[in-house]
């Protein structure tokens, strides 16, 4: 018996190591990496140059001087939006206001969404009773709800957050629920065989397995929460002005450069929120999840 033991202890590590050697992917060769960097950096940069050139063409060639205000050239927009401190302060204050609304809305949506999805994963009857209303919440155009929410909750910060929560809730529920359901039946069998309680199964199997899908939901909702914050701000026209309100003011005053600046900042906010949650999700799952690794 000791000899067999010996055989296993001594014989296998090397063979296991051999299997590993052939399997662990080698880091990419220098040339392939360079080519890939070129594609990922040069291609978007090239497109950017084309875009800016096209813009100038429209401003100076296509539009007559009288109509040039419709699409002012980029350098004038930059001068107006970034060169004048009054303008800059105004727009950054608005941006901060909108960011707070969007971020708080998203956090609340995540909290509600995770709880609902977890409850729905535990019993079919809970899913059946909650899901239709989640769908309704998603399909009712948010614009239709905005006036009502304004009336109910006063046209302030709180009401804007509520709009943001409503618009960003659905993807969190559906993606998390999908993630919680994604565990293999054989994994569930293992937990059943070892007498795992419902809580243990949720904690050690379903929740960790749902993290990639969960973060997909967070990312989608991050963009939506910004839309909610801006749309509510735009329609409320009361309370501390955020980007949405500024968009309206600039339009009314025909401050076209500032309108473009406001569009720029609101897009940036959405992009940063989307990208930030993607980054956190990747960091959490990159060691084990194929999709996050593929993104590099």
């Amino acid at each position: 018996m000791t000899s067999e033991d010996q055989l296993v202890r001594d014989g296998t590590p090397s063979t296991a190591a051999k299997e590993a050697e052939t399997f662990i992917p080698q880091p990419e060769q220098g040339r392939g990496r360079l080519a890939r960097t070129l594609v990922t950096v040069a291609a978007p940069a090239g497109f950017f140059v084309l875009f800016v050139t096209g813009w100038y063409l429209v401003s100076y060639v296509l539009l007559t001087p009288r109509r040039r205000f419709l699409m002012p050239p980029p350098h004038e927009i930059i001068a107006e939006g970034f060169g004048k401190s009054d303008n800059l302060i105004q727009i950054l204050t608005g941006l901060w206001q909108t960011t707070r609304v969007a971020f708080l809305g998203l956090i609340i949506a995540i909290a509600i969404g995770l709880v609902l999805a977890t409850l729905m994963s535990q019993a079919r009857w809970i899913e059946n009773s909650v899901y239709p209303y989640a769908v309704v919440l998603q399909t009712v155009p948010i614009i239709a709800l905005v006036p009502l929410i304004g009336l109910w909750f006063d046209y302030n910060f709180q009401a804007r957050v509520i709009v943001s929560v409503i618009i960003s809730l659905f993807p969190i529920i559906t993606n998390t629920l999908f993630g919680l359901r994604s565990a293999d039946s054989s994994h569930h069998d293992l937990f059943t065989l070892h007498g795992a309680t419902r809580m243990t199964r949720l904690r050690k199997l379903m929740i960790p397995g749902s993290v990639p899908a969960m973060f997909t939901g967070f990312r989608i909702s991050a963009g939506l929460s910004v839309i909610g914050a801006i749309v509510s701000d735009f329609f409320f026209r009361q309370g501390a002005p955020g980007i949405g309100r500024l968009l309206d003011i600039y339009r009314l005053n025909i401050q076209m450069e500032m309108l473009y600046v406001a569009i720029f900042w609101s897009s940036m906010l959405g992009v940063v929120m989307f990208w930030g949650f993607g980054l956190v999700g990747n960091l959490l799952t990159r060691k084990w999840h194929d999709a996050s690794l593929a993104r590099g």
Partner: protein
Amino acid sequence: MGKTLADTQDDAVDGASPVLQFREVTKVFPDGTHALNNITFEVRRGEFVSIVGPSGCGKSTILRIASGLLPATHGDVALADDNIGYVFQDATLLPWRTVRRNVELFGELHKVDKEELTRIAQDAIDLVGLTDFEDHHPRRLSGGMKMRVSLARSLTLNPGLFLFDEPFGALDELTRERLNEELLNLFLSEKFGAVFITHSLYEAVFLSTRVIAMSPRPGRLIQEFHIPFEYPRHPELRFEPEFAEMTGKVSAALRAGQ
């Protein structure tokens, strides 16, 4: 499940008592599929029993019933102990856990003391030859290595009965043979009882003390073969004429049962 066994038939296999007993077990699924018909067999500690048969003959169903994952429609199933190792064809590792944390899983589920568990897990990892791979995540392991982790995980609870559902079916021939040899070493050192499902007659004969041949659905036992080769068995056994003759007999029984 988990009925205590009456002390029966103490005469077989060194007087060890059965760790698993099927008595006239029949399984009909709710959709009317007649999977198993009147299955009777038993496995004792220190016995390695392989079940071979055509696809869909209910081999896996036997294991699911034995483990309690499925109820039998008729008949009795008795286990000496609820502590069983169940190894699936897929290694069923949790991808977010390292090798070490995967091996610790069952102990965690059974509330084994943390320090004790760390020690047991390390022993099991060493035993399957994965020393130095403790902190790898499953995605960086080959199919054979994943299967070793799966084995180590079951070994931590030191079960008296192992159920193997085609554990090496998805591996290449060489890895499969190597793992067969290592599994026999584990079997000899840990002295568990084993039920091993496989499509490969060679694998079945090489590993087993007994091979049971099953008919197509509804699965019945058609013939049982005692495999006379001594343990420890050497890899070269596979090339000896007696070995070929034995697999030939099992093969003939399977063909006759079609």
